């Protein structure tokens, strides 16, 4: 870590690039994530166009080779999960919200925090570099199963695959540092009087997610080292001919890969809880139960990973165990959804854009959850594994998580971040444009999946049984293009509101949690006077009070 010059009349450089202020670092994570999202979206556009109009010139790209197609599919997944969902949901919101919401002036380790972002930035640069090296970017799917990923003569991307693994490993290190910072901060630095049960759910969720990440990622980091050695030095950790075992990597990957789903799901759930409470003017129903289900989900998520490998060559007897645990996890998750629905009972819902997105999260995520049962049940997974049914299913979980919940968070906390409101009309246009087209993309893909159309196929022209579904592919692609087009008004709205939007004031939503009890945008050090906490974060519409919200830090 270089030296931190830390006075208050800093140069732009030290203020925005080498700042140790948790809010600036949060912003850095958010903008980096948004930039990576553009790349991921562009990849999606290119390969969807190829699927809809195989072998034709793609506007804005040109002719797509099957190698480039694999690279784009692979990196679309990698980017959207590791460089969009995680930095925005956990790192950006975690950094921005945790100190504000637990009422302290910064993270406990500001410079560790900055280091974590710098490593993350390097990882992003390494990943982008991997697209331009000799042989092109890695194209072995985001699961990077060896031997394909381990040997250049198989994947034909000698540099791309190595850079890809290194980028992912660096990203893990960045989030380990960040996670340790989050956990320690919340454990130690809560405002006086804030008991465990007074912590806003979104903070809880980010902490639980960080712990899950920390506990699950270890084997994969070790695996990444082993894989890089296989690629560069020629060790045989995963090479069957010399005694290695590809299945070992699959286990290392999915032991992390499945908890990872909940690592991003839980913060999204937390965001939705907070947004619903504020815009529904209602206390979150069963706070303790939400926590219980979140922790239960977290624990169970360590017992289910092999359901990604049912037909991948694991012992069929193990599949039975993992079927049971996988279906069991539907209980805490389902319960959490029920609690959220119950929260809306007797609410007084303001349909702001943020609230619309929060509600849309529930509506869409239920689809993702239910379709998951088809894949968790080993018997039916035999047919669905690696088909578009899987693709549609996890987009119905990840899109609500990484996109819809993130938008809910942005529309909700934007006033606090920049001190100005976003334009509601444009927000609503953006909302409907996004939600309708999203369903337009992925509902049809369930049909393709049922028909047994496989993922990661460059072109379906040769498959006689599948050519008749071309219409569906075109329909999905048209929707995708529309969805991407509808992000333009959002970006315009976002950046114009940042400078021209109407002033927000400290607490535009009349919210009770701590982050709204300080100026917006919060100055360095956040609170003029460090707050003390007297009650939970969701005291809305308390009977017998003139105002319908009761800030955590108001004595009476």
């Amino acid at each position, binding site marked *: 870590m270089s*030296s*931190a*010059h*830390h006075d208050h009349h800093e140069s732009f450089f030290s203020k925005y690039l080498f700042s*140790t202020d948790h809010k600036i670092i949060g912003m850095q994570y958010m903008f980096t994530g948004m930039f990576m999202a553009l790349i991921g979206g562009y990849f999606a556009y290119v390969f969807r166009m190829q699927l809809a109009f195989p072998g034709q010139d793609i506007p804005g790209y040109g002719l797509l080779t099957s190698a480039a197609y694999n690279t784009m599919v692979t990196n679309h997944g990698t980017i959207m999960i590791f460089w969009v969902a995680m930095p925005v949901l956990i790192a950006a919101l975690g950094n921005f919200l945790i*100190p504000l919401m637990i009422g*302290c*002036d*910064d*993270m*406990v*380790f*500001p*410079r560790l925090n900055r280091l974590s972002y710098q490593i993350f930035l390097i990882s992003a640069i390494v990943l982008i570099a991997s697209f331009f090296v000799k042989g092109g970017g890695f194209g072995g799917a985001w699961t990077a199963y060896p031997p394909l990923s381990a040997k250049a003569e198989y994947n034909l991307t000698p540099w791309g695959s190595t850079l890809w693994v290194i980028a992912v490993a660096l990203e893990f290190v960045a989030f*380990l540092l960040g*996670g*340790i*910072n989050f*956990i*320690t*901060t919340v*454990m*130690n*630095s*809560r405002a006086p009087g804030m008991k465990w049960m007074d912590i806003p759910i979104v903070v809880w969720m980010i902490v639980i997610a960080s712990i899950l990440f*920390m*506990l*699950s*990622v*270890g*084997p*994969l*980091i*070790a*695996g990444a*080292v*082993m894989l890089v*050695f296989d690629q560069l*030095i*020629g*060790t*045989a*950790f995963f090479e069957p001919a*010399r*005694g*290695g*075992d590809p299945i*070992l990597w699959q286990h*290392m990957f999915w032991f992390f890969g499945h908890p990872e789903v909940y690592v991003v799901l839980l913060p999204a759930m937390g965001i939705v809880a907070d947004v619903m409470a504020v815009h529904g003017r209602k206390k979150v129903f069963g706070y303790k139960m939400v926590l219980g289900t979140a922790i239960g989900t977290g624990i169970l998520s360590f017992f289910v990973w092999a359901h990604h490998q049912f037909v991948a060559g694991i012992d069929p007897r193990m599949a039975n165990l993992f079927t049971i645990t996988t279906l069991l996890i539907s209980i805490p998750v389902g319960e959490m959804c029920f609690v959220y629905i119950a929260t809306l009972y007797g609410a007084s819902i303001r349909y702001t854009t943020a609230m619309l997105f929060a509600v849309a999260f529930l509506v869409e995520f239920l689809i993702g959850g239910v379709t998951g049962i088809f894949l968790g049940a080993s018997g039916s997974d035999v047919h669905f594994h690696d088909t578009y049914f899987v693709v549609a299913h996890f987009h119905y979980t990840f899109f609500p998580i990484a996109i819809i919940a993130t938008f809910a968070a942005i529309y909700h906390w934007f006033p606090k971040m920049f001190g100005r409101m976003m334009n509601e009309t444009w927000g609503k246009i953006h909302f409907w444009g996004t939600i309708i087209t999203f369903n337009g993309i992925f509902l049809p893909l369930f049909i393709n999946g049922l028909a047994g159309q496989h993922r990661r196929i460059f072109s379906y022209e040769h498959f006689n049984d599948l050519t008749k579904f071309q219409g569906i592919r075109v329909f999905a692609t048209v929707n995708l293009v529309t969805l991407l087009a509808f992000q333009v008004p959002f970006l315009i709205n976002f950046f114009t509101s940042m400078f021209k939007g109407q002033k927000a004031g400290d607490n535009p939503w009349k919210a009770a949690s701590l982050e709204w009890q300080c100026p917006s945008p919060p100055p360095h050090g956040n609170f003029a006077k*460090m707050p003390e906490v007297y009650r939970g974060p969701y005291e809305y519409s308390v009977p017998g009070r003139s105002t319908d919200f009761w800030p955590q830090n108001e004595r009476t």
Partner: protein
Amino acid sequence: MGAQIPIATTRSATGVPTGRLAVWWVIASEIVIFGGILVAYILGRLMNDYWGADAANTNVLAGSVNTFVLLTSSLFVVLAHQAAENKETDKAFRYIWLTILGGLIFLVIKSFEWSYEIHHGMTITSSRFWSFYYTAAGIHGLHVIAGMIIMGIISFDVKKGKFLHRVENIGIYWHFVDIVWIFLFPLLYIAK
């Protein structure tokens, strides 16, 4: 180190000082990282008895001496911690550098060991045992180096009587590195 300390850092709702709590979390995450590679190694070892033939070529003496060195350095760092608690800064400084010296000896012995083995054709690619041998010990070695560097940096603050609590934090980390070796030693050297 111009950054003034945030109020956040000085709070301690759990009763565990922030720095120490963080170190414990670092260790928790390190356990799974080393756990990942050791689990892979142990399962391979149990499945393929013939790895024992390779393991027989490891230098038990070097391994034993290194274990002794690390255990001793652990003693020094805990004594440094104690000295720091009693505000005997010079003593703490001396013990820290003794610990660093221990780490240095460990690395020197390791490098001799490795160069011998490599010259006799036992390289990281010779067999999966050797792959694990070099990878696991290598990752551990990196942790030793990291610990030495951090200790070197903090030792001068300690001499000035600043940030004395850091002696304990780095100490806990160093003990963990020691423990990892305590397991690597029988796994890689003794078990034949």
